[in-house]
């Protein structure tokens, strides 16, 4: 058997793949957080709960309506984004003139409500969601075994992240968005409907979380706590990357997933804490975050 640094390659690449998958979820979620933060100046604490909701909507589609994975991948984000837009219109929009911390508190409360409601309805034991038949099975790559679905998650997440990046950096709509992030009042003065843009941005960020939820459903069991466990790590990722740049959020997400995977190979005890240790080091050296601007 081949080994690298005394570690069998199978184990090493297996953990790296797991790290890459975690990184894919970190990237998708921190991208949504960064987008929302850029325009709304709110840290969306309910992001994890909405990710969980995405997975649950897919599960409910399958078990109540018989709607399969591929349609869920399209429909669940729309449903969850509609819910998000409702929240933004009825509640968040009242808070823009106040201290940003109120947005954090409100979305924390919403996260508790959503999580509590799903826990009340479905308990805390996870529900399985089958891998779609098109993506079942795996490939033996020689140095490792690659389950096709896991490869698909990494590829899908890369496509989504790069697509969002292109949308924001290269299109006219993205230019409006970036301008609105810099100076919303001025952009509004040019006749662009900023409140509408804010609502759609929130919807888009939430939809990204929901897609991540659907992608996660076949890997992790669908359970009401899946979001809150993830979102705190994503917050640390966001602190490490800084919320200044979209590409920064994506790169940091994948990078930290890999760091976590490597830690699992070489020092498993620290795997759950390594991201927080990285965060401490970044805070000491570059408090604004790796890609952050200012403080």
């Amino acid at each position, binding site marked *: 058997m081949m080994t690298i640094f005394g570690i069998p390659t199978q184990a090493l690449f297996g953990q790296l793949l797991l790290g890459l998958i975690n990184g894919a979820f970190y990237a998708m979620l921190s991208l949504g957080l960064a987008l929302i933060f850029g325009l709304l100046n709110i840290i969306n604490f309910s992001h994890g709960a909405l990710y969980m909701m995405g997975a649950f909507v897919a599960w409910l589609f399958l078990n109540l309506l018989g709607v399969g994975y591929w349609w869920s991948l399209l429909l669940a984000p729309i449903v969850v984004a509609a819910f998000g837009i409702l929240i933004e219109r009825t509640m968040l929009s009242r808070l823009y003139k106040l201290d940003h911390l109120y947005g*954090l508190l409100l979305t*924390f409360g919403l996260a508790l409500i959503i*999580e*509590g409601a799903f826990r*009340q309805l479905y308990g805390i034991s996870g529900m399985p969601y089958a891998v779609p038949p098109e993506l079942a099975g795996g490939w033996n790559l020689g140095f490792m075994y690659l389950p096709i679905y896991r490869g698909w998650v990494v590829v899908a997440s890369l496509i989504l992240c790069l697509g969002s990046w292109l949308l924001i950096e290269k299109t006219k709509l993205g230019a409006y968005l970036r301008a609105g992030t810099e100076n919303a009042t001025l952009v509004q003065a040019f006749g662009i409907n900023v409140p509408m843009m804010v609502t759609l941005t929130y919807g888009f960020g939430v939809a990204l979380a929901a897609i991540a939820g659907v992608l996660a459903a076949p890997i992790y069991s669908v359970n009401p706590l899946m979001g809150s466990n993830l979102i705190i790590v994503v*917050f640390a990722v966001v602190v490490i990357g800084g919320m200044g740049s979209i590409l920064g959020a994506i790169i940091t997400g994948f990078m930290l997933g890999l760091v976590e995977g490597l830690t699992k190979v070489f020092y498993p005890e620290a795997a*759950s804490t390594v991201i927080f240790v990285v*965060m401490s080091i970044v*805070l000491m050296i570059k408090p604004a975050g790796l890609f952050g601007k200012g403080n």
Partner: protein
Amino acid sequence: MTSANPAIAQSGGLTPQRILVFGLLALGLIAPFGVYPIFLMKGFCFALFAAAFNLLLGYVGLLSFGHAMFFGFSAYVTAHAAKEWGLTPEIAILLGVATATVLGAVTGWLAIRRSGIYFAMVTLAFSQMMYFVAVQAPFTHGEDGIQGVPRGHLLGLIDLNDTLTMYYFVFAVLVASLLFLHRIVNSPFGQVLKAIRDNEPRAISLGYEVDRYKLLAFTLSAALAGLAGSVKSLVFQLASLTDVHWHASGEVVLMTLLGGVGTVFGPSAGAFLVVAIQDYFSGIGSWVTIIQGAIFVVCVLLFRSGIVGVMAPMLKRRGIQA
């Protein structure tokens, strides 16, 4: 409200403010004869926890979303010291508070490099790290927690196994801590904290080393949160993962917000309300979480000054400062 209170410091007569304070003290002394003492002690512990948290949010304007790490970890240390090392309760509590103080100094040193929303996220992340440490470290006994912690004899003399004795001990700890906090808030140090809260750049331009003030406030807040956790572990004879979980961090935010941020009595009032809700709805699944979330939403949207914050102007018209 937050302003310095000359009524207590100077005048000798019976001001309405004094009547309120003495009334509450008297109520605290006779309460265990009418209300279940364990419930009251739980309320006191969380009142202290919320008051410690309020020092940071209400007077420095820093929202920590990770105060459970101080509360929960000092509970573990106190429980371990009392059970495994057989130390007397006051030493065990001191060890717990010392742990929380050190933890507060280290995490605070890192966290105050960011402000606002980032500060909240950094503290939350650190507390999650400590949660994972608590899950893995052998001395915390994972999911079981440290059970059957002996309350022991205070100073080797006073038997705390008697519920009423324990009650008065906890009550005394709370009253002393609230007096201490009152003193901090109304000291020159407290005035600087409020200046930082209201206008940080101006405080810097006046020559105050803002970071040192923030760090000291954070450490004090952590130490008092630790005291609350230590005492709680003796009251319930249990230290468990619940106390280090981010839910506990959220609950203390809720108590303070509900009671009134930056008020003296607000966090205590909020703590008792939240504990009462917990006890009342504890039997029926996840409703506690849903209700707590709903209170958050209502507080933020409609009720930002909290119960005491809303009542204070009414009382003030009658010359009472809440």
